[in-house]
């Protein structure tokens, strides 16, 4: 039994040492994920806490199909979406319609020089809904159909908002680099 299996088994038995190890292993990445979705650091900490409680109380549902890390990530994405929905942050009227179109041409080499934290700051500036769509599609790998189902929007809307979010982000990055 490898270490991850041992941790999972320990968590299923409700053993605190296993829970603590899982927390220590995944919490930094999950906090970054939460910040990407909810943008506010304090809210992200709440989502992180709530997500781990869900993880430990629902770990019996993890049947070993797919990676444990992927399953955990899904829990945190869902928890973040719940948090945004509870705070009415996924309001469809806060859309990308206000955003101007930006050109696609961008120097990727320049962007590579941008740190992850700076990129995160740029993402945080996106409106909630488009930020969520960008995160879900580009980083977490959800399809537009899945996003549309989760957010209760049309698939085309998801596509359009992703496209606009990307352009907005490019512009933000460019602005950042010019500073």
């Amino acid at each position, binding site marked *: 039994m490898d270490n991850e299996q041992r941790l999972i088994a320990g968590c299923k*038995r*409700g*053993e*605190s*040492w296993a*829970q*603590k190890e899982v*927390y220590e292993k995944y*919490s*930094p*990445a999950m*906090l*970054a994920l939460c*910040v*990407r979705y909810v943008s506010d650091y304090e809210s992200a*900490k709440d989502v*992180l*806490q709530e997500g*781990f*409680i869900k993880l*430990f*109380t629902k770990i019996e549902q993890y049947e070993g199909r*797919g*990676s444990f*890390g*992927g399953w955990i*990530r*899904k829990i945190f994405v869902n928890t973040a979406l719940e948090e945004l929905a509870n705070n009415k942050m996924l309001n469809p009227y806060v859309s990308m319609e206000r955003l101007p179109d930006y050109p*696609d041409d*961008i120097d*990727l080499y320049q*962007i*590579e020089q*941008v740190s*992850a*934290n700076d*990129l*995160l700051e740029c*993402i945080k500036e996106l409106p909630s809904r488009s930020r969520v769509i*960008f995160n879900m*599609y*580009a*980083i*977490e*790998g*959800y*399809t537009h159909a*899945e996003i549309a189902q989760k957010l209760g929007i049309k698939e085309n809307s998801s596509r359009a908002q992703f496209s606009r979010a*990307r352009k907005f*982000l*490019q512009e933000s990055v460019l602005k950042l680099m010019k500073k």
Partner: protein
Amino acid sequence: MSKENKNIDKLDDFSKLVKQKLENHQLPVSDDIWAGIEQKLNTPKPAKRRIVPWYWISGGIAAAIALLLLIYPIQNTSDTTHTMASKTEVSTIEEPKSMADAKEPASNSADADFSTNPKSTPTVQKNAAGLFPQKTKTRNLYTDAHLNTVDSRTVVRKEEIAELDDNSAPKMDDWKPKATVDTQNNTDRTSEQLTDNQGTNRKTEKIDRLPDLNDYPEIPNHPKRTRKKRPILLATTFGSSGTVTDGGIKQQDFAPMMSSTPPRQLVSKKVTESYSGILTPDDYSNAEHQLPLSVGVTVEKPLTERVSLESGLVYTYLKSMYRNPGSVDKNGTLQLHYLGVPLNVRVKAIKQPNWNLYTTAGTMVEKGLRSHYTQEVDSRSVVNNKVVKSSIEGVQWSVGCGVGFDYKLNKDLSLFLEPKLTYYLENNQPMSARTEQPLNIGVNGGLRIEL
């Protein structure tokens, strides 16, 4: 994540780059977050609204039917015995000689009252004794006849009398003098009652009719309701209960309960003191109590049209599981078996031809039959198991009330459902759902049969 590569080919270079940079990005986490998680994980779950699942109800009905099938042959046997006994009683009381003898002392005194005159009773016994072994029954029935108490046997006797052979019929004439004497007792009452109506003739007529055995039950002038049959009801019940605040299985921390409850025990103190290594409730951090399950057979005796008394036998099964996870993992299971005798008063609130709504209140005393406790202490290197089977000292008292609904399936059979509230008194019983949450809400269901 399985979705990681799903869109990778569709992503533009910019998005790929963002993904690459942020997918595994990490941020430092402050220590207070884990403390909050740990605290929330160890906090008992908030109370949930109690929902009685349908499978409990259907299970209860199924168990009740099974019990009914089990007891039905016994009930038939009982009925047969009862009928035979009635026949014997009837044949005894029908013996004219004895009855004629029996009436003689009474004829000496117009005020003779067999029910209260001790002198008259031995005479009956003496005469009946030589003829029938059921001398006591003879006396009882004879007394019953004069008292005309409310008794379904009266009806049975009447039916049985009709079945007597012809030989007995002429002898019934011997009843006349006795009946006359008897009527004299009743005459006072009758005349009192009829005075208002100036019914002297009727009084005479009544006396003339007395020897007619078909009218025998009508000798007294008691109101008609006294002859109304109130059948005894036999019920098979199946029930379960949980706490008022929790739907069923409870998970609790011990610490908050320590202050409000007396020292608890898993097995008797005697066993704990005699054998080493038996864990106590304080050795565990979590308790999980399963829903108590009860099955029983009760008998309901109607007292009036609306009020009845219920008692019987109820078996209850309780199971609790205890845990203390950690480097030394402790697990325990305690199973308790109780047999109780309930005493309830039931009052019909709404009485309809096919259904009744009633309220019930009463008490129950339960004696613990057996306690079965197992524990496992896993210290990684060694696993120690212990099994303790012991008796349960003392009794458990409870009081309860509820409302019930019964629906008549046919003439003799009805289905009932009783939601109830029960409070278990502190009687120093082994730890269970009842000791931890004395106020329970539950539901009983089953079948009721008229005997």
